[in-house]
């Protein structure tokens, strides 16, 4: 029954959307068309769908590995930002004297950057037992300020009319395009490879199994000698690595330079994607396509229907709300219980 709840949640979200559009005085069928069909009617739109799904898939697969082990990395957005900074830093460093080797180096640097950022909450958790939910979340804002500092300062393009942005990356530092008429690039293949690797790790490897045990039954993990600190480290670092990759894919892909903001919240949306995808890599791939469509639909709705951009976040939130509600209601039944009135107890002795 558990696998049903994403479908129930999607259906309920659509129902709410229907009511919402009606309430806003739009024809709900037209609005649905604008939201869910129009964005992918063209080849370009289809490419955009996959392009936006790429960072979501990357982040969510890594997060899922940790979530299965009860390692709650909420800071993928920050790790993504660090991936963008490190990957972008490599691109800028070798801007004038680079070659084909720059791109692989950027990818490695991005992954390492994300891991380094994730290592901070991992260390705080294992050393001081500090809650990783809070620390990883707080580091998101530190990462954003760090990026802002760089593009306003050291890495600002001298010929950029004082705009806070870096130079455009050289061609060899950009991910090659894989589909004509679109912006779709090799990042998608990287995401698909991550899905495959994630599936192999979670379902087939002993280490993945042990992480799952650590999440399900910490006492059993301790009994079997599965180190809890290693579990925390692995969960955080895997999430950091894939989020870092997502960051590189953004700056070396559709953006092509460093800007004060490199992500419209992919790292946070990936949390929803991970849960809608049931923490399973293939489910995550499907869920990230749905989430990507919500992003595109939101933009389309802004342009065509003059709806506010908040509509995207609203759909995301509604989806997560219904998913969590469906999970609870599948496992628990709501019963209304009246208080039983105690009858006076007669004296025991006969």
């Amino acid at each position, binding site marked *: 029954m558990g696998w049903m709840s994403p479908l129930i949640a999607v259906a309920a979200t659509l129902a709410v959307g229907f009511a919402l559009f009606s309430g806003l005085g739009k024809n709900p069928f037209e609005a649905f068309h604008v939201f869910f069909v129009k964005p992918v009617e063209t080849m370009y739109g289809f490419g955009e769908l996959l392009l936006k799904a790429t960072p979501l898939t990357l982040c969510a697969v890594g997060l899922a590995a940790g979530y299965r082990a009860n390692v709650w990395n909420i800071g993928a957005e920050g790790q993504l930002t660090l991936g963008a900074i490190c990957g972008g830093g490599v691109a800028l460093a070798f801007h004038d004297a680079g070659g084909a080797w720059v791109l692989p180096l950027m990818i490695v640097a991005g992954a390492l950057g994300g891991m380094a950022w994730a290592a901070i909450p991992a260390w705080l958790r294992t050393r001081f037992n500090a809650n990783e939910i809070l620390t990883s979340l707080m580091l998101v804002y530190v990462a954003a300020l760090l990026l802002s500092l760089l593009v306003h300062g050291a890495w600002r393009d001298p010929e950029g009319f004082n705009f806070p942005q870096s130079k455009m990356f050289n061609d060899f530092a950009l991910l090659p395009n894989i589909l004509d008429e679109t912006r779709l690039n090799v990042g998608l293949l990287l995401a698909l490879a991550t899905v495959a690797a994630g599936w192999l790790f979670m379902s087939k490897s002993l280490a993945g*199994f042990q992480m799952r045990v650590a999440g399900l039954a910490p006492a*059993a993990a301790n*009994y079997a000698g599965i*180190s809890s600190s290693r579990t925390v480290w692995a969960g955080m670092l895997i999430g950091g690595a894939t989020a870092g990759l997502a960051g590189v894919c953004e700056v070396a892909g559709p953006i092509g330079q460093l800007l004060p903001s490199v992500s419209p919240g992919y790292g946070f949306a990936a949390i929803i994607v991970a849960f809608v995808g049931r923490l399973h890599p293939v489910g995550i791939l499907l869920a990230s396509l749905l989430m990507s469509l919500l992003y595109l639909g939101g933009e389309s709705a802004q342009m065509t229907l003059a709806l506010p951009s908040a509509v995207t976040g609203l759909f995301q939130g509604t989806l997560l709300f219904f998913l969590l509600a469906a999970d609870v209601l599948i496992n628990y039944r709501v019963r209304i219980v009246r208080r039983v009135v105690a009858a006076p107890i*007669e004296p025991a002795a*006969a």
Partner: protein
Amino acid sequence: MDAPAPRLQLSGISKTYPSVVANADVDLTVLPGEIHAVLGENGAGKSTLMKIIYGVVEPDAGSIRWNGAPVEINSPARARALGIGMVFQHFSLFETLTVAENIALALDADVVRMGLDERIREVSQRYGLPLDPRRRVHSMSVGERQRVEIVRCLLQDPQLLIMDEPTSVLTPQAVLKLFETLRRLAREGCSIVYISHKLDEIRALCHTATVLRAGRVTGTCDPRKESSSSLARLMIGGELPRPQHRQARTRGDGALVVDRLSLPTDDPFGTDLVDIDLSVQGGEIVGVAGVSGNGQKELMAALSGERVLDRADAIMLNGEPVAGLDAARRRALGLAFVPEERLGRGAVPELSLADNALLTAHRQGLTRRGFIRHPAVRAYAQATIDKFKVKSPGPDAVARSLSGGNLQKFIVGREILQGPRVMIAAQPTWGVDVGASAQIRQALIDLRDEGVAVLVVSEELDELFEICDSIVVIAQGRLSSPKQTRLTNAEEIGLLMSGSFIVPVAASAASTVHDHAN
């Protein structure tokens, strides 16, 4: 006037589950002030019958009369309101709450909170079940948790008290004391339904016994006039299995040696271990006796590697210092361990038996280059199921779906099939039925005969006397010197369990147990 109406009268009670008939046409009559044994193996339908009386399960057919009047008991709250109390074998306590909070939750409505602590202390003292009302349940051992359950029932002045296997966690002296408590309650007019498979106890305590087999009543008798073997015949339709216990033949090279192990507890209500010396050689079974909460939990965590120590040579495994190694690395050196808690520690409830085999047995060729060999895992789980006669649908069955006894057999089997050189088992037969217990004990004896060093921690003295070559006693975190089983008796061990071997000077220096009890 006629004889008083029976306190409780069940007639024609039947309950059928999709796959089994739990109760078929059961009649049971309990008189006021009577101690009535319900005897039967696990799966005989005792638990279902008790759940029907306590309002947890609704019967398909049959009627219940309470003090002569027909009643419908449709919830435990209703049962409590009638004056029925139950001490479950598997406790229903909230671990994060204190003793007093747990008890307050069960007391209906308007019991005044003020003075509850005092009442708990008073009742627990009166019935010889010392309890600190402000302790949190998660830090308590199974034996102590049972006390909470008993005291919780007694506070409600019950007219009928159902006790499900209450003595397995008590010292012989405490059992006698509990019996006094129960007899006193009975004299005061309270009826007691006493569920057990310990025939000697039933013969010593109970006025009447109703025997169940496969959901049906096979007989009602006065146990004081029966012999243990005649009761056993009624109960299992045959003789009780006795384990084969020969003199140790082989001396294996496996050995567990503990040298002056001291360990402050990491639990505010735990027991510090003080200067523990222990030696278990290959080919012998050493038993650790003691009332729960005297450091068994801490000793097990230290021996298994769930807690790692600073001084590596405090624990020697086959001659190697291992105290600094974690559980996985000790296992790699030939240690196997059956923990006290089955679900959540010995096994992951949500995972299949196959995955639970993988949990500790992955060194047995179940992985290749870090990847799981699923066919091999299933084969290992299947072998465990076959060899230890685990009743289950197969390796894909979820651990949680197995009965306690079957899951225990699976865990013991999983550990034994790893071919350990040192085996540690904590409470290996707690809550396991007679047949499965005998099988588990036999498996431990077989291990010994193969030259494995076996350490068994148990709160059941009978069990230790049955299988052990020597017995040590743990009390207040200290270990007594070993006693040859042949040369000692329950009285001597019982006396040691009360801490008689502890030198007074040391006892006053650090006795966490006493501090918390008062």
